């Protein structure tokens, strides 16, 4: 289906106007930057209502099939909505795991029943989804998951525990990787994948208090929780393959996500904007030569990172070590954010010592973002592990 430029232009204007009109605005408390940081009921309710409103206005899941609750339109419409949401900096869509990982997975390989059962609730935020992959003793070593799923009649009995379950207490469903067998040819062969209910006896998500002093994710305990056998996706033993497909959606390596703004990440221009309204010794902070120099350094680094992305599209520009740019992306991006948040605190003079509350600059979001930035420099493989990976796989250095 081809769409005229004129139609798209009009659609963009329509969306832009709708967002301006319906932006839920300042809630009077500090919003999280992403679904991983939702820590209080008031934050959650505010975000769930907003997603529901966007969906019912027809601006979410626009390219998903209409028979399951999507919009049935070309992807380009959803992309325009997502761009406008980012531009107007409205709050993000909180059911991220459902919208961007579980949803496309179900649409891609789910049964007709699964699509009918799950897709609409994902879009409307009625059914919140969480993810059960990592375990306390197996952070990055996903294939070694030890949570057990034992067949018992028509059911499975789940035991073990999963960690870093964002939205765990609010979730109705979890995408769960569990072990149905221990005697396969390798550790991956015994894994199976479940679309598992959370509100059943024996599933106990316990919130974990973070270094920010907030709650944002859980350790989820399974104490012989009984779930219906129909919850398995695919067949026993296909879990690793399905988990890998899920990670493709998670990392954005494959399309099919519902769209909508996924996070309200602070970026280097926000730091610059903060610098412009900060003062030092009664004068604008940007008159201080040291602050100016540091700010320019950050802008150069951020620009360098941004420029890496278009470069990877041209093979000749990456011929010598073709994976260098892609494999260092997480390391570069997350470490930069951690450091520029530190710098943002230093712009606040003595107020850098405040924390989330009404007297803190910007409500304390910089302090909170600095602390939360460690989730990205640690999660998904620490920066130190990343340096080993790049050193060994890209530079060919010997293993440590």
């Amino acid at each position, binding site marked *: 289906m081809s769409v005229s430029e004129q139609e798209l232009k009009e659609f963009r204007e329509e969306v832009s106007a709708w967002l301006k009109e319906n932006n839920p605005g300042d809630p009077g408390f500090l919003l999280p930057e992403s679904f991983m940081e939702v820590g209080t009921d008031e934050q959650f309710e505010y975000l769930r209502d907003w997603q529901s409103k966007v969906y019912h206005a027809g601006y979410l899941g626009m390219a998903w099939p209409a028979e399951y609750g999507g919009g049935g339109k070309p992807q380009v419409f959803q992309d325009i909505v997502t761009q406008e949401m980012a531009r107007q900096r409205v709050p993000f869509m909180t059911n991220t795991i459902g919208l961007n990982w579980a949803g496309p997975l179900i649409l891609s390989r789910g049964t007709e029943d699964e699509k009918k059962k799950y897709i609409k609730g994902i879009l409307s935020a009625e059914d919140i989804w969480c993810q059960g992959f990592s375990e306390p003793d197996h952070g990055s070593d996903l294939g070694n998951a030890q949570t057990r799923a034992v067949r018992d009649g028509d059911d499975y009995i789940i035991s073990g525990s999963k960690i870093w379950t964002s939205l765990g207490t609010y979730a109705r469903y979890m995408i769960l990787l569990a072990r149905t067998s221990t005697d396969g040819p390798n550790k991956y062969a015994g894994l199976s994948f479940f679309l598992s209910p959370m509100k059943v006896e024996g599933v106990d998500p316990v919130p974990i208090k973070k270094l920010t002093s907030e709650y944002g994710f859980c350790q989820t305990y399974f104490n012989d929780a009984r779930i219906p056998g129909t919850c398995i996706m695919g067949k026993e033993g296909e879990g690793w393959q399905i988990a890998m497909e899920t990670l493709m959606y998670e990392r954005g390596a494959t399309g099919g996500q519902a769209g909508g703004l996924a996070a309200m990440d602070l970026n280097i221009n926000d730091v610059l904007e903060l610098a412009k309204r900060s003062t030092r010794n009664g004068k604008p902070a940007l008159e201080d030569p040291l602050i100016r120099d540091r700010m320019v350094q950050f802008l150069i680094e951020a620009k360098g990172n941004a420029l890496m992305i278009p470069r990877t599209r041209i093979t000749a520009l990456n011929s010598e*070590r073709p994976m260098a740019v892609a494999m260092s992306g997480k390391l570069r991006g997350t470490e930069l954010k951690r450091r520029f948040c530190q710098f943002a605190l230093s712009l606040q003079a003595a107020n850098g010592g405040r924390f989330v509350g009404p007297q803190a600059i910007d409500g304390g979001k910089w302090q909170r973002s600095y602390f939360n930035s460690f989730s990205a420099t640690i999660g998904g493989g620490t920066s130190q592990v990343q340096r080993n990976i790049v050193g060994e796989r890209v530079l060919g250095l010997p293993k440590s």
Partner: protein
Amino acid sequence: MLLDTAMDFCSTHSPVTSVRTRIEEESDFSDDLWRQVIDLGWTAIIIPESYAGLGLSMTDLVPIVESMGRNLMTTPLVSSTLAAHALIEGGSEEQKNTWLPRIAQGAIATIALAEAEGSWNLKQLTSFGTRTNGKVQLSGSKNLVENAAAADVILISINLEGEPVLALIEKSLIPDGALTREIIIDETRRAYQLDLDGIIIDESMLLASCCLKQIEYATLLLLCAEMAGGHAAVLNVIVEYLNTRKQFDRYIGSYQALKHPTVQILIDMEASRSHLYHAATIWNTATEDELEIALRMAKAHASESFAHAGDRAVQFHGGFGFTYECDAQLFLRRALWCQYQFGDEKYHRQLLAPLLLD
């Protein structure tokens, strides 16, 4: 592709053994090598077709200069190209007609902008010209003039009645003893002091416009290309040693104290390349502010990170790194030269600040 040709040519003709042999010679390039560079058409790249050139862009020099930098190859190609660029931007029709076809065919030209103080402000000039009867009498001196001894013509900047201007000096006008070789940190290059006292040029040798900014931009682009190549090469020198040298029964590359900073050198190199390719991509189309930002960001980043890579290369080679025999020093010296020509990282960041912050 130009890049493949350039990579092949430079690695074939400039192995590190011949780089070291060249250091001992008076000239930093052989006539034979220069002949081949001319035959490849590289000296004609930026010269318009109407002046017997190829009519390509400055950005087409980028892969060539990057390859030269990677192999520490030295030729007058960059000097000649920059002088040609100045003539294209600021020369009279007669000057262009006289010099551009000759440069395209391999006549060597160079630019002489620096002075004894080493200021990066190209308009701050203490060499002078005084007009008398259609002639200009020169005084003072220019410094760190690359390839001056080999040059058929040198383009200089002078203060003429309070204004910076550019002028051409033909080789025949340079008296014996006016060129003195300078001792510079990068031993692969040749740079000279040019004493102007007593040299008198015709007024027709003055350029119509003083295109210092255009010369600066082109120089920054090509310096960044040279640095990107050098950075890639010194990274390879480090990786090679980390993969072959053993201490305490282990390859030293297995130690994270060496591995992790080497990864940072890789990341910095990729960022230098990204800034360079971006500046090259927008060279012909960007607004002046965009291009200035791109070039100064590229030079600031490359200056700092290539010099750091050279510094770490010496350190990571241990005792061997302290010797002249270790190639790390060749790259450290190259990096320091490039860092301090046309502005180091702090200088460019200072010029970027008003463009980015205010």
